[in-house]
């Protein structure tokens, strides 16, 4: 293992310590064991709170997207491990301004069980909660079983859009409806060239030959749909876009925000090489590009690889996507 760290078992706590030290204007640490990151100050009375949670190792996801016009709090687990029920309950409490709290997170079994139980706990304290799960990874299950799909980079759109809706003072039902609409509007897929190393395990999450890539791989190294020889950028982009469009074709006039995302180690240079094909394909199908995002939005630490997310926008979603928002990693 070649990583910059101290004790692997302090990896998450030390990164959180540094995160809030560097950006106190955006983040504060609270909750059991300091494993909740929240906006500074108290929850705004009457504003619907939005919480997320999940394993570490994906920055800016999840914690990084706490911020104005985005999330209110995040429960932080160890690398690739679910936060505890109590941490999630604390995140809900700190996000609660009396108008209820939306739990918005990726479709992973451990996270669901724990967030559901956290909801049971805070219900006894008269905090209403709702849930919207992100299921944007088209490679993780066929369309007939779309509800089983994992949540990946598409959650960034849901955070942004739901966060903007909550900021307007919309009630819990309305924020939940919009979050679900955003979740339904995103499709993602990825390709991995190298694995990453979970600090506490000290070993790569999977193995792949020097000259190979895995299309459709999950962000924790879950098996993808195809392992093959590494191909030129335009061909890789084409295959990933084919997977997305097979799931949801572009109709002429569709307005789409594309996200070309680095899984960690892939540099922006290569993302821009890939973006050429993204733009070409969306426009060739008659789609219009809105607010393209290119960069590191959802990662798996030092994994080499990229993901593409397309977010289909209507007027409502586009308004919320373009509304002001600010965190340490993203400003709109």
């Amino acid at each position, binding site marked *: 293992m070649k990583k910059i760290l101290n004790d692997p078992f302090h990896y998450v706590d030390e990164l959180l310590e540094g995160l809030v030290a560097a950006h106190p204007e955006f983040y504060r640490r609270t909750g059991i064991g300091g494993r909740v990151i929240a906006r500074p100050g108290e929850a705004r009375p009457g504003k619907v709170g939005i919480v997320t949670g999940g394993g570490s190792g994906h920055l800016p996801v999840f914690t990084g997207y706490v911020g104005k016009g985005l999330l209110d709090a995040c429960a932080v687990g160890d690398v690739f491990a679910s936060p505890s029920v*109590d941490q999630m309950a604390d995140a809900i409490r700190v996000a609660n301004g009396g108008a209820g709290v939306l739990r918005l997170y990726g479709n992973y079994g451990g996270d669901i069980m724990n967030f559901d*139980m956290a909801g*049971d*706990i805070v219900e006894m304290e008269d905090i209403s909660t709702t849930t919207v799960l992100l299921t944007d990874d088209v490679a993780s299950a066929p369309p007939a079983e779309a509800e089983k799909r994992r949540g990946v980079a598409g959650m960034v759109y849901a955070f942004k859009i739901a966060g903007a809706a909550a900021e307007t003072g919309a009630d819990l039902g309305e924020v939940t409806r919009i979050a679900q609409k955003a979740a339904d509007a995103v499709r993602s897929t990825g390709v991995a060239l190298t694995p990453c190393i979970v600090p506490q395990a000290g070993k790569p999450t999977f193995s792949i030959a020097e000259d190979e890539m895995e299309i459709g791989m999950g962000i924790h190294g879950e098996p993808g749909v195809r392992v093959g020889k590494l191909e030129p950028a335009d061909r890789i982009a084409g295959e990933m876009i084919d997977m997305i469009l097979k799931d949801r074709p572009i109709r002429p006039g569709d307005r789409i925000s594309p996200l070309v995302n680095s899984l960690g180690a892939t540099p922006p240079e290569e993302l821009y090489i890939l973006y050429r094909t993204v733009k070409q394909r969306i426009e060739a199908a008659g789609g219009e590009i809105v607010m393209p995002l290119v960069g590191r939005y959802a990662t798996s630490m030092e994994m080499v690889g990229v993901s593409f997310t397309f977010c289909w926008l209507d007027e409502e979603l586009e308004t919320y996507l373009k509304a002001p928002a600010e965190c340490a990693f993203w400003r709109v």
Partner: protein
Amino acid sequence: MPLTRDGLIAGLSAVADHMETVADVLNTLDGQLGDGDLGVTMVRGGREVKTVLADLPPEIGESLMKVAQAFTRVSGSSYGTLVATGLMSAAKATRGRTEVPWSEVSGLLNGAFETMKARGKAELGNKTVLDTLDAAAKATNGLDDPRAILAAARKAVAETMDRMRQTPAQIGRARIFADKSIGLDDPGMVAFAEMLKGLG
């Protein structure tokens, strides 16, 4: 006399103590079909529950919620989560009440069954704790004496285990060992039976 905080504490304490004596049995049984930590889960959960008993509030619902939270704090396994889910279901149904009539036990068991079924995404007949829980809920329907309730629940659980012993496990990790599970009791059912045994 209805169920009160004192009765709850006595019962939970007895169950937790009993788990210490059956941990090895549960671990061994679970090790044949799963990861072999069920006894550890129950003992750790029981010990943590005992640490909160003295501070439980007089309301049954609020007490059960504290107990459920204590259980989840230390037992990360799916069985631990399911037990806590069942406790939370009962907590919601008894919220704000310092006395709960024994006639409600059947309904509380059924409520726990429904929420655990939903959370565990299992069905009746999958050879899980749900089968025994459902049997206990049905067998105790209409009863309002704690001894009669316990006797009926234990009988129903034992009969369900006898009936399902020769069927294969259909869900969870034990499903991978479906053939091997034929002839063996489901570890989760055994843990539930032992919880009842701990009550007397």
